[in-house]
Each structure stands twice: as structure tokens, then as C-alpha cells.
């Protein structure tokens, strides 16, 4: 589904990703862990199409297409979803209008007619229950005045509405209490299908108690330095990241 080869990227001339290689197949959940500043969020931003990141080398192929040539909105319509670490507040744009526009853009892309008002409301009701989001939030401006937990739940709600093929969740667990974490994880698990995949970016192992990954990668200083099964997450939780740095050092 997604193939990243030797990806190099930076911001303002500073190199952050120094040759990333990653293969993701349909049905898989990959966790990307790593200490602060290792490049996790930059990787997510490159995949979603953030334009201030300069790509200096490598390729990203998504469903057979050159992802780096696609506009952010086209990536979305082709099934990529980024759950933001810091969801953006958009004053004056109502949640309903926002998500309806997005859903209908996706439908247009697939050659479908826009949803009728009643079908849209039905769909929204169904997905809201999935993430236990307060109905009142739908009538407010996008993320405006939402608590940290509500913002993250709103990300999963949008994901549920758009049904992506590849979801990239950037630190979705940060700032969540244990109940919100459970709800968010539950949402992700229920959206899991054999033909879609997820990348879960997290600093802590905690989220991975709820979302069980197939593969865990450790990103450090712009490179994936270790890849293993889900037990790697537990090892990291126990020992921190220092032993990996040590291992790298010894290796060199």
C-alpha cells in the first residue's frame, strides 16, 4: 500500500529525515515510536503533504502512485488520513459544514452524488456514537473551545466519516486521560478492516495496550533504527530509549 524509500526531508535547511525506509501492507498496523525530536511528526507531515517541508531525496509510493506529487486534498480523497497531534481550531466554520463538505468532496472523487441531508445526518449520528462525541460539538465551530480530549475524539470521528485506507495517527494519545484514550483506541480498532492500514505514531507504549500493532519501528535521529514485533514496545517502555542509542553507538 505504502512504500517509502530513502526519504530525506528537512525544514529551513535543517535535515530531519535522513533516509527512511518503510513498507506497509493492507491490513497492518504499524507503530512508530521514538524519542522527542527524532522526526516522527515530520514523517507524518510529509505523508499528508505539508508544504513547508523540503524533500531532498527518496520516493514515497502510495497505491502505485507517486505520493509526493499529489496535493494534500488529493491524498485525502485517495484515502490518506492524518490525525493531527494538535487539531486546528477554525472559528466560524461549523463542524457540520466542514465534515459535510469533506465527505461530499470524497464522494465526488469516487463519482458519487452528494449525500442527502437526511442520509448525512444518519451517517453522522452513527459515527458520533462510535467515538462517544457530544452531539453539541457538531454545531460548534471546528475544534473551537473543544477540550484536548474532545479534539482528539473529533479526529477519530472525522476518520470514521471519511473511512480512509491509510490512517496516520500522530500522537493521538498525547494529552488524553485514560477514558478518552480507551474511546479513541476503541474507535480505531472498530474501523480496522482487512483492506486498510494504520500508522500509529506515539511516544509512549500506553496507547499500544489498546491498539495492538503488527510491527513496531523505532525512529531515532531521522532513521528507523529498529523494527520488530509488538514486544518491542514493551521493551521500550521498560528500558527507555537509551539502550537503543547505546546499541547504535556500539554498532558504529
Amino acid at each position: 500500500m505504502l512504500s517509502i524509500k530513502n526519504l530525506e526531508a528537512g525544514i529551513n535547511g535543517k535535515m530531519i529525515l535522513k533516509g527512511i525506509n518503510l513498507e506497509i501492507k493492507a491490513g497492518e498496523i504499524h507503530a512508530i515510536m521514538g524519542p522527542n525530536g527524532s522526526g516522527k511528526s515530520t514523517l507524518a507531515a510529509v505523508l499528508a503533504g505539508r508544504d513547508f517541508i523540503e524533500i531532498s531525496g527518496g520516493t514515497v509510493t502510495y497505491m502505485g502512485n507517486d505520493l509526493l506529487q499529489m496535493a494534500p486534498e488529493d491524498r485525502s480523497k485517495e484515502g490518506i488520513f492524518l490525525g493531527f497531534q494538535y487539531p486546528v481550531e477554525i472559528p466560524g466554520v461549523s463542524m457540520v459544514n466542514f465534515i459535510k463538505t469533506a465527505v461530499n468532496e470524497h464522494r465526488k472523487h469516487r463519482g458519487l452524488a452528494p449525500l442527502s441531508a437526511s442520509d448525512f445526518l444518519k451517517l453522522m449520528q452513527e459515527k458520533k456514537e462510535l467515538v462517544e462525541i457530544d452531539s453539541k460539538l457538531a454545531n460548534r465551530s471546528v475544534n473551537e473551545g473543544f477540550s484536548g480530549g474532545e479534539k482528539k475524539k473529533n479526529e477519530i470521528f472525522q476518520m470514521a466519516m471519511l473511512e480512509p485506507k491509510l490512517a496516520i495517527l500522530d500522537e493521538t494519545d498525547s494529552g488524553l486521560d485514560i477514558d478518552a484514550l480507551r474511546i479513541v483506541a476503541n474507535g480505531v480498532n472498530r474501523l480496522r478492516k482487512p483492506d486498510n492500514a494504520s500508522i500509529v505514531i506515539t511516544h509512549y507504549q500506553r496507547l499500544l495496550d489498546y491498539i495492538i500493532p503488527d510491527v513496531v519501528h523505532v525512529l531515532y535521529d531521522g532513521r528507523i533504527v529498529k523494527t520488530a514485533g509488538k514486544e518491542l514496545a514493551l521493551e521500550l517502555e521498560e528500558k527507555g530509549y537509551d539502550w537503543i542509542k547505546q546499541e547504535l553507538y556500539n554498532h558504529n
Partner: protein
Amino acid sequence: MNGKSGISDFFSRLYYENIGRIGESSTPIINSFRKEAIEKFNLLGVPTKKMESYKYTNLETFFRHDYQSYFIPEASHFRKAEEFRCDVTELDAHGIVLMNGFYPTINGKLRELPGGIIIGSLNAAARKYPDLIEKHYGKYARSDSDGLIHLNTAMVPDGVFIFVPRGSVPGKPVQVVNLVDSEQDTFDQHRKLIIVEENAECSLIICDHTMSPQRFLTNAVLEIHVAENSSFDLIRVQNEHNNACKVTHTFIHQERNSRVSSGIITLHGGLVRNNTYHRLNGEGADCNSYGLSLADKWQHIDNYVSVDHASPNCTSNQLFKGVFDDVSTGAFNGRIHVAPDAQGTVAYQKNNSILLTDQARMDTKPQLEIYADDVKCSHGATVGQLDNDALFYMQSRGIDKRQALLMLMFGFAHEVTRNLKVDALRERIDGLIMQRLRGELSQCASCMVKCV
């Protein structure tokens, strides 16, 4: 004399050449104000950029021009006005259509509506209800600095009169459509007097339109008296073509426990300067003053707002927003004056502008003069670009960049329009703003109401 422009003589001459005819068709009460007013105008003149409150607006670009002006209406004009139908069919309102400032029946008739409400020509009202006119006319529109207010008082031929008696609550708003139409470049003066008595309610919609592509210069004065426990709601939609200049002076005088909401939506117009003066004259009065400017090309839109807290425990809120594209420019000057004994005052002010190009420009200036000590006042102004993070967030959900930009600008504008109280009109204005932002409303075709 500081701040008087050389172009003032043109308007003085216009007065002396025509005052005989103006006076003949008008009434003694209104005529009695003219002499003193022209003397004040001769002293103050047309404001220039040397005046602090006109620092960012050069009126000369429109005032220095050889305009025609006429003071006696012609029958053909009235026909056009009477044939005019508002396009917002879902809007249920008592309608008045003014042609070049004149009420559309010669010598005007007054309409008396259920509940004792009177709407009609100012001249006709001055004949029939001289006591009411004497009590209120020229009492609120006062200025020691802006000559244009006095020019209006000196030369205005007719206007609109609205009276809502004590305890009366009209079921629907009054809509005044100001049309200007001429075969020559024309200077017009509009005048309105609105009296809302105790425990009454009045909702007024004013729509400014141009009907022909000529150059227009309009100088408008509104006087509004809102008595104790009453409420008054004003929505003004400005949609003239970009070769027109409009200067408005709105004076809203509020008594005890009265509530006022004023919203000015400026969609088009070459040079627009709105002066809104709120006077909170009685304890517990509350006023909300809103404005939204959407400008492109070479448009210039300037809002001057003055809120005068003359009594204790009054509340006021100013919210003015603008989106400026191309080489358009804007200005906002928000004054809050709190008198020495106006304790318990709460006064807020906010001005936010978005500049879409490097050439667009916005000047914003708060002006707080506080002479009481138990006061809660705040002001804030921002001038910036659209939020790139919000734009990307929307794109990342599949909304293309153009649509996302539109939604952001619309959302920005909606913070103002959501406060407009007439539902049918608010929906129409939202629709117009969307069209305006898409670039589908331009120049003369911009009329919110389809021109006849």
C-alpha cells in the same frame, strides 16, 4: 479652519444657488436649520486627511468632481422607485423605496400602520406632526468637526420619517431601499429620522444600491432616538458600484435600559465611510455595533465608530471585521468615551482584518478616553493573513484549497453576520457574502436586488 478642503466652495456654491428652490419644496421646521448649518459647513468644510478622524481616508478622490445635483424630484424617478421590488422575497417588511433621497410620492404621503406606527416622507411628517419633528430633528446629529453633517442639514430636500409610539411592537421590520439613479454624475443627500418611544421595538433594514453606472456621491445622515426600555435594531447593506462614494453619519441616542444593535455590511462601493455615533444617555443602556467590509480592486472602506458612555452601568460592544483583496484599503477607528460619572461601564471593542495580498492595506486605531474609575474596557485589533494551519487542516480532509479559502473567509465574516437578527435577510446576506468571496458579485451587477 484646520482640515477644511478647498473643494468645500463647490458645495457652498451649490447651496447658495439652490436654497430658494430647496426651501420652497420643504417645510418651515426643516428650513429653520439650514442657515446655521451652512455657516457651520462654511467654517468646517469637507474633512481632509489633516483631521485625525479622517486621517486614512482621502475624500478628495470623490469629492473633487463636477457633480450635478437636483432638488426637485421628477415624476419619472418616482415611477422607477414605485416599480422597484426587493429581490429578497422571503423578507416580510414594510417597504420604502427612496429615489435619490426623495420619498416616491410628490410631497409625500405618510403611511399609518396598525399600532400607531408612522412611516413616510420627512417633509410630510413635518407638516402633520410638527411637535415630533421639532422635538427630535437636528438634536442628535451634532458635530464640531465634521462639516458634512452640517452640509446635509443645510441642503437635504426630503427624507424618511419613522415613528414607533409608546408600547408598540411592529410585527415586521421596516425596509428602506436607497436607490440612486441618474444620467449624469450626481451628488445626493439622504436623511432619516427614527423615533422609537418608550417600551417599543423597531427593526430597520437599509439597503444602498446604485441603479445606473454614473458616478455618485451620497452624503447621508440618520438620527435615531431610542427611548427608555425600547429596542432598536439596524441592518445596513451597502452594495453600490465601485464608482460610487458613500458617506454615512448615523447617530443613535439611547435612553435608560434601551437596547440597540447596529450592523453595517459593506459589499461594494468605491469609497465608503461610515460614521456611527452611539450615545448611551440613560443608565443600563446596551449597544452592539457590528461591521463587515469585503473589499477588492481599488475600494476603500472606512468605519469610524464612537460610543459615548454618558451614563452609569451601560454596556457596549464593537465588532468590526474586514477582508481586503487586490489593492483595496480599509480603516477602522473605534472610539470609546466614558464620562466621569459613568461608573460600572462595560465596553468592548474588536477589529480583525485579513489582507489577501501584499498591496492591500488596513489602518486600525482604538481611541479610549476613560474618565470614570469603575470601568471594564477592552480593545483588540489584528491585521493578518488567513491561517495556513487551518487551510492545511481542511485540505487534509479532502477540501480543495480554493474551497477551503472560501470557507475560512466565510467563517471569518460569519462572526459578524450571525448577530444579524432578521433571519431571512441574514440568510440572504450570507449567500451574498459567499458569492462576493467567490468573485461572482462584481461591479454594477452586484445589486443584491436585481435592478429594473
